[in-house]
């Protein structure tokens, strides 16, 4: 098995592509017939036998023309990948159990479009795309997440059967891309507020539930907080909006490792803390995070939330 794996490694050039754009060359494009291609070949043999048996001169010609079509199809399937530029794009953090999307930018410098391209990260759902002539397209490759922490983009297979579907050309991409995976939140009731010291940085004069405006929805925002009416106004042109409330910063939460159930293991505790961070942010209160060995002082807002979640995601296990 190990030998086979090494052979594959060597044959398919499984190696990191780094984090710079690169162009697919013939050395890393592979091609085999598809099932339809095999059926096509068998059909051709049957047709050829028929042409011989009935001495059909044009039958011979037809079979040979279709043979030529198959051969030409090989070139064109190969060409559909050849010379395609691939650049790693961005990825946004997700919670464990959600699907992470790694954006890859495909750039086509040719004057003909490249249609019927598919991408698939190992063991994940495939996505289909095409690149217009002399254009580019951004494609998000889904990868299912299981664990918190950094998730490296697994090996991606870029493949196509276009134009004839008789041949399957593929290439392995391994751009250096990673995505931060937060722990999967577990929602327990928030711990009681620890202190009411005012920080003096009042964000608004109104009460805690005073409406302060809209902001773009983040992946972590619950759908319940989406301002549907406001979002509907521009008919999906922009990301969804969530209402933001400003309140007095008198209330302050300490989300402390110590407050999580004692019998839970550390991963579960991280999950509970994640749930608290989200709940506290949603509730609009200031909160601080205290983990063994590190502490984040109480604050509010997206940046703060992200900081907390990153700390939870990267907490050494």
């Amino acid at each position, binding site marked *: 098995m190990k030998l086979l794996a090494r052979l594959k490694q060597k044959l398919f050039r499984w190696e990191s592509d780094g984090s710079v754009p690169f162009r697919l060359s013939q050395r890393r494009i592979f091609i*085999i*017939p*598809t*099932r*339809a291609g*095999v*059926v*096509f070949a068998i*059909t051709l043999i*049957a*047709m050829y*036998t*028929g*042409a*011989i*048996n*009935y*001495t*059909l*001169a*044009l*039958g*011979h*010609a*037809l*079979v*040979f*023309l*279709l*043979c*030529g*079509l198959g*051969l*030409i*199809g090989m*070139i*064109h399937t*190969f*060409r559909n990948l*050849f*010379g395609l530029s691939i650049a790693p794009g961005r990825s946004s953090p997700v919670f464990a159990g959600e699907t992470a999307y790694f954006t890859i930018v495909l750039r086509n*410098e*040719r*004057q003909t*479009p490249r*249609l*019927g391209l598919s991408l698939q990260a190992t063991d994940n759902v*495939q996505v*289909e795309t*095409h690149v*217009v002539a*002399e254009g580019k397209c951004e494609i998000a490759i889904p990868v299912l997440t299981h664990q918190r922490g950094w998730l490296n983009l697994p090996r991606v297979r870029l493949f196509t*059967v*276009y*134009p*004839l*579907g008789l041949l*399957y050309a593929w290439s392995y991409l391994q751009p250096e891309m990673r995505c931060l995976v937060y722990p999967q939140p577990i929602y327990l009731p928030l711990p009681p507020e620890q202190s009411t010291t005012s920080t003096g940085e009042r964000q608004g004069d109104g009460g805690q539930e005073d409406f302060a405006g809209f902001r773009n929805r983040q992946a972590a925002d619950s759908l319940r907080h989406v301002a549907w009416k406001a979002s509907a106004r521009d008919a999906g042109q922009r990301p969804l909006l969530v209402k933001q409330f400003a309140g007095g910063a008198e209330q302050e939460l300490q989300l402390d490792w110590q407050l999580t159930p004692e019998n839970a293991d550390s991963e579960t505790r991280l999950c509970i803390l994640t749930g608290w961070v989200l709940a506290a942010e949603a509730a609009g209160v200031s909160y601080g995070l205290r983990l063994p060995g590190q502490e984040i002082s109480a604050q509010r807002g997206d940046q703060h939330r992200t900081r907390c979640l990153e700390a939870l995601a990267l907490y050494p296990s």
Partner: protein
Amino acid sequence: MSKPAPQTLDHRCAPWLFAAALATTLPHAWHQPAWLSLLSGLILAYAGWLWWRNERLPGRWLLIPLVVLTCAGVMLEFRTLLGRDAGVAMLVLFMSLKLLELRSQRDAMVLITLGYFLLLTHYFYSQSIPTGLWLIVALTMVTAALIRLHGGPASKPLPTLRYAGLLTLQALPFMLVLYVLFPRISGPLWGLPQDAHSARSGLTEQMSPGSFSDLALSSEIALRVRFDGEIPPRDKLYWRGPVMEVFDGRTWRPDPEQKKPPSIEALSPPIRYESTIEPNQQRWLLALDAPAPDLKEFGINRTLTVTIRQPLQQRGRFALTSVTDYRFNVSEDPAVLRRNLALPANLNPRTRALAESWRSQGKDQSVTVNRALALFSGDDFAYTLQPPLLGENSIDEFLFQSRRGFCEHYAAAFVVLMRAAGIPARVVGGYQGGERNPVDGFLVIRQSDAHAWAEVWLEGKGWVRIDPTAAVSPSRVEGGIALALPDSEALPALLTVRSDWARAVRHRWEAINNAWNQQVLGYNPERQRELLNQIGLANPDWKNLTALLASLVGLLLLSLTAWTLYHRPRLDPAQRLWHGALKRIAKSKVNYAPWETPLALQRRIEIEQPALAPAFTAVVNAYLKARYSADPTDLRPLREAIARLP
């Protein structure tokens, strides 16, 4: 092998598949029973309607009974499911039924593969140039459907068609190379079904009143002949077919007893020629009268008919030799002579009485022959395509009442007269005449040239050809049937063309068809061997043939790959102007480094060549504006700025 995930078919793809199905099945409507074409048409229309209304496709409850019913229909129509015609009918029906089952990409692939296969079946019925051309169009159509299927909605109609055309064009060189060089195997590999070859009208081994006048209406080509030397004069162009010796009062048939070889004495130099005979399902060939008996590949029977072992089911090319002046079986077997005197008893009493009276006047045989011919050349006999129907005593009725007939009437009456007068005689079927195509020099003999004449055996002379039709209508032999018939009798337009240009067009077209038949369709294992010999492969066996083939295909593949993958990035107009500007400043000893951005270059020039800087800064500004502004179409400022460069 890789298995694509089962994918549902995109809605807009269906019209492509409909078009592919239509293109591959439509030409079959010409020869299929009407109900079959109608049924497939209805199914196609129904599938199209469902697609238009965006309704669900019918389930198994409809498809299974439909399949069973159509199979039963085909079974009833053809009495089999396995023959050629039945098989084609089934394929056409399955093709249309598959349209009711287009759910996934896989279904579409099945349909397309079936479509490619169906293309082949058209050649059972026709291999003419128009069929060949139409099938290239149909093939492109099917390929376009294939491309659309895999390209998805992003595959726009016109580019898809263009791409399919490009693929077909690129596949053509492969077809040519393979067609010429791929080792040919001569078929058939196994026994063919009964209906493997279409029945065609043509000369048969039987002659009864009316059998020739039907042929006279057909302008189809029966055979084409290329002579090594000059074409013999028209009145020598008798194309000998079956010889009919047995008469039952109505129909003439060949004598099955054919064992003895003929003896023939040539009186003129041999004429060599190559005949291309259209398939006629017969076991004899048509040869110029009289074929020389030293033909090796063919048999030649007692009555001097060239025979072949298998019925002629494909267009065949035969190299033959004939002599036009000959003496044939001067010493004939008495039993044969006796059989050639036999007449059915009690029939045609008046004819026999007339012949008896000639015989009783004695004189020699040739006088009797001339008497009969003189009878026919009398005023009251007419040559016509529409003779009246004849009763039991057909010869009596013809000779003494109607006196209107076609060549078979004259030949039959003449032979009966001779036999009754004691001269052994028989009927010979074949063709007479032919028309030289000035374009390619082939002599073209049509079904309308079908002819029947007589042969009498005269002591010391052997069998002598006598054409009674020539007596009644000399122009039949000298000028062909169109001249011999009265104007009132309608012949197909093709046979009666008299205007020069129409004739020229027809000659041209038939010569093209002939070249197509000879060079393209007639390219068989022997031709392949000849050709390979010509190009220097003295002894082509499969090994060096394969090597040659592989290297040629490889070369083609390589050059097409190079051509297809070659890609030069196209510069946009602003970039092109910018490159021009860089060339201009190179004259002022400023060299541009490939990694330098325009602004970096500008800064460098400001330091290194301050004199150049203002003009160049204008160029850079105009260039950046032309390339990166929201409306980059206006290139005039850039051009003007470049023009101001020193």
